[in-house]
């Protein structure tokens, strides 16, 4: 059934469809409407879940870790300061290999306090061992949350589904909501293989990782990340077979006709596609949907015939004057010119005019550079 709903509602619908057991909820803009919607589902008996009204995001993640370690399918949602507050626990969730799924509604970080969208929050958690997916629209949000459970429970890593604050969270648009039975068959019931607290099988979780074992645990997470690429690919294909919508680690748009290539993540990809369709069909787009694990080979392959690329980043690595996606690409695209465009920080709108400016700038570019687009004079 198709319904006109917001991005946060789309995520909440996915949580209901996946029959999540334990939800930990703490309000933060622009995520709040997600946990509100889930509360409604639980209050009306549409989702049979334990709903923990925790007193902070730190406790939200801690409760999810406790619940997941007991063998429950868990969910929480956050943004910005909330995600930053969770920081240490994100490492613990991945270190314990718990398949927690979290919605992060991308929002800038203080100070100055800013409730609007950029990717600084999730990018700052890049190295916590979480799989990071970025959605372009509300349909993708729902679909990615469903797939996230299957991916997480297969590779035993937590998954963060990122959607742009306000731009998706507060925007309604048509979303196909799949049948409950179909989704439940697709994700199955979570049967923990490695970690669950049960008096009949007394295991110890979260011990002291002495130097003799710690490094191995890191290597295992890295291997799981590598494995995740294959698993995500497989789950994408299974999803397409079941629900008809096609997903992949990266998505390309109009590359076959392009003389100029942009690369980006999240909702701005829609604006770029609109630009391509209406203003300049010589532009192509690489949309990075799976940011961690980073699809190195896939990106390299689609860029084989191009000698430069314009990378849009809604985040900034201070002291490097580059965004994360561009920095990552430096290491895998050594033979290409990388032009980095810092855009949309703290809710600065990314307009068609901005895209045009980027494309023109990129066409002129002879060497690597970083430009801040849309700054006020």
């Amino acid at each position: 059934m198709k319904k006109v709903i917001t991005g946060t509602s789309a995520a909440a619908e996915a949580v209901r469809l996946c029959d999540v057991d334990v939800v930990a909820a703490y309000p933060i803009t622009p995520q709040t409407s997600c946990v509100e919607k889930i509360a409604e589902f639980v209050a009306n008996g549409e989702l049979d879940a334990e709903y923990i009204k925790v007193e902070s995001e730190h406790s939200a993640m801690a409760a999810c870790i406790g619940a997941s370690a007991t063998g429950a399918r868990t969910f929480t949602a956050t943004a910005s300061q909330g995600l930053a507050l969770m920081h240490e626990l994100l490492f613990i969730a991945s270190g314990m290999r718990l398949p927690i799924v979290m919605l992060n509604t991308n929002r800038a970080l203080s100070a100055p306090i800013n409730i609007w969208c950029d990717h600084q929050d999730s990018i700052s958690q890049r190295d916590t061992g979480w799989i990071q997916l970025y959605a372009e629209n509300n349909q993708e949000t729902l679909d990615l949350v469903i797939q996230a459970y299957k991916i997480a429970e297969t590779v035993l890593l937590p998954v963060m589904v990122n959607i742009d604050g306000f731009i998706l969270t507060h925007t309604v648009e048509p979303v196909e909501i799949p049948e409950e039975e179909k989704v439940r068959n697709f994700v199955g019931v979570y049967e923990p293989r490695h970690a669950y607290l049960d008096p009949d099988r007394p295991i110890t979780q979260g011990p002291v990782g002495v130097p003799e074992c710690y490094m191995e645990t890191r290597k295992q997470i890295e291997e799981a990340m590598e494995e995740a690429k294959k698993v995500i690919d497989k789950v994408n294909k299974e999803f397409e077979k079941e629900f008809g919508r096609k997903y992949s680690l990266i998505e390309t748009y109009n590359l076959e006709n392009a003389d100029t290539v942009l690369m980006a993540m999240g909702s701005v990809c829609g604006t770029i596609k609109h630009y391509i369709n209406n203003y300049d069909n010589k532009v192509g787009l690489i949309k990075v949907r799976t940011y961690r694990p980073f699809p190195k080979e896939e990106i390299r392959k689609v860029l084989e015939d191009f000698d430069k690329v314009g990378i849009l980043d809604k985040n900034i690595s201070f002291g490097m004057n580059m965004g994360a996606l561009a920095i990552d690409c430096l290491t895998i695209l050594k033979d290409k010119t990388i032009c980095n465009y810092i855009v949309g920080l703290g809710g600065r709108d990314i307009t068609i005019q901005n895209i045009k400016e980027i494309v023109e700038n990129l066409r002129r570019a002879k060497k690597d550079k970083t430009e801040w687009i849309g700054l006020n004079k």
Partner: protein
Amino acid sequence: MQFPREEFLAPGHRGCAGCGASIVVRLALKAAGKDTIVTTPTGCLEVMTTPYPETAWKVPWIHVAFECAGAVASGISRAVKALKRKRGKFKDKKINVIAIGGDGGSADIGFQSLSGAMERGEDILYIMYDNEAYMNTGIQRSSETPLFAATTTSPAGKVWKGEDKPKKDMPMIMAAHGVPYVATACISYPEDFMRKVKKALSIEGPKFIHVLQPCTTGWGYPPDKTIEIGRLAVETGVFPLYEIEYGEFRLTYKPAKRKPVKEYIRMQKRFRHLTDEDIEKIQKYIDERCKLLGL
């Protein structure tokens, strides 16, 4: 009394000789029995019992971080509920969910998470094992460090007399949350402590037990005196034993005649800088508190 013989904490752990924390665990788990899940925040107990690949725990156990045992226990308790209801797991067994946290992990950095769990009415037992300082990091002051005790961050010097504040009153703060059961206990009174654990576990909802646990290393006394010092803390009125059941306060042990605080103080290096005059101040403070509690 014959104490239950089943052990849920195995020997071979790395606790100090004379460690009181392991006595807390032994007693609590003998009272709770096998069908128990334990979470421990970061601290001595966690470190000494679980250096990979060995664990001293014989019940399912999890450590997450320093400041979130209340939330972790909430997650476990709710997961048990959900999995019982939705998937028929854990059969019909009543599963005890117990958090065992030190004073730092409970009264300081973990306070918010503990308060949240208590206020929400989670069906958990939180045991705060109180050794009155951050022992795991080498004896730094916590909000449970008593008046005039020297620690590495509240040292006795020419100007300072050790810690300048008395203990934070955790059981009363927990009672103010309106939880059904709050108690104090001391490892030197094992029957009393175990009875309280059993009683707590028979009650649905959040329960809190504050158990005093002398620490040979942090307090500065010979390891064989762990129990004797705990007993003195109670006999002097420094650490009164009571319970608050559904709001009703009751002393569970009343010494015939309170011993002078000096006897307790003089056994410990952390108080050795004190003059008789200083001890008199502590005595006065303790007298006032005991009066308030009817001791």
